[in-house]
């Protein structure tokens, strides 16, 4: 998951897994075929951008504290975008 340099020590492995699960549930992030690292990185960044745009956050494509905080808020389980 792309993370801003200044936040790089902020997140544990568990946090990153939570964030990935969130994007999969609500932003239709597809599981990553192991051999396509480059593409998956873009998909993650683009899904983060989609979420940040949806909630009116600064669109960086990186997992910063503000974005992670919003992921933790209680919410509806229906996706925000996608089929």
């Amino acid at each position: 998951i792309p993370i801003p340099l200044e936040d790089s020590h902020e997140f544990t492995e568990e946090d990153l897994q939570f964030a990935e699960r969130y994007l999969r549930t609500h932003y239709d992030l597809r599981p990553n075929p192991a051999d396509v690292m480059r593409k998956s990185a873009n998909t993650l960044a683009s899904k983060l951008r989609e979420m940040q745009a949806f909630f009116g956050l600064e669109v960086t494509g990186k997992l910063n504290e503000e974005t992670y905080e919003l992921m933790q808020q209680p919410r509806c389980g229906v996706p925000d975008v996608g089929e």
Partner: protein
Amino acid sequence: YNFFPRKLKWSKTNLTYRIMNYTPDLSRAEVDRAFKKAFKVWSDVTPLNFTRIRSGIADIMISFGTKEHGDFYPFDGPSGLLAHAFPPGPDYGGDAHFDDDETWSDDSRGYSLFLVAAHEFGHSLGLEHSRDPGALMFPIYTYTGKTGFVLPDDDVQGIQELYGAGDRDPNPKHPKTPEKCDAELSLDAITELRGEMLIFKDRFFWRLHPQMVEAELVLLKSFWPELPNKIDAAYENPIKDLVFMFKGKKVWAMNGYDIIEGFPKKIYEMGFPKQMKRIDAAVHVKDTGRTLFFSGNKFWSYDEEKEVMETGYPRLIEEEFPGIGDRVDAVYQRNGYLYFFNGSLQFEYSIWSNRIVRVLHTNSIFWC
């Protein structure tokens, strides 16, 4: 507002629902009532009718479940995912599931079953999530009070695009989410809070960080559930690190998010006349240590150190601050200036030279 792909909707207006099981957090009657009230939110503004059945297959099957509960969209334990629902269609279509690892309640103690159900039934009828933070269909849960719920305008627009309007709307005045660049924008209150600026309008406030141009719109109750849905005035006393908020004859003191023990108090306990009904605006002037309170066409001066109202007040606003009009909606201080808001205008008043130096649009506070 948004729709599901292919704008899924029911092709009939008479829909059935069935409650398959119950949560232990509430009595059966409370659950029945919450769901019935949640359906009414939508039937009030459309031609849709909802009938409860107690056996067989209903259009909208409602159930409580935990973790993996049979639809391959598992819940996740307490908080996080609260519920989900499927768009209109056969079988699972329209069904609504509630996570029973949550604590369901009919007030702010737990998650309001009524509010979450009203949101989920919006999905059951064909609405997707809205980006409007004031909309019921916004994906994040916000407690908006135990009574007096009125469906926000954004949701009404969406559902009526699918099903048209009904003929029995008991609350036709549906709250709109304020637009910060609206040329006619007027404000309710403004205060600093630990370096941020909070700008209040209806049941919202914008958080304006000094370094950021983009203001974040937040529901008042998502920060302070105990506060009313709209306030009259607010100011920060930076020395005490307290923010005071006013509504009618009441005043709340906040330290950050926490309301100070013993509040709300009555405004006359600060030295205002007993018959005073409300405060329109308030501002703490750091240089003098005084807080100015504006009500109607008059204003008072309060000595924060001695915690008493200064003698010789109230005075007429027009006499002390000629040119700003005879009432004030909101006011804040910055760099030796007072900014008085009156309708869609703000007056930049120099404390030093005691005169207005600029007149601006209210919405210029957001760089519009």
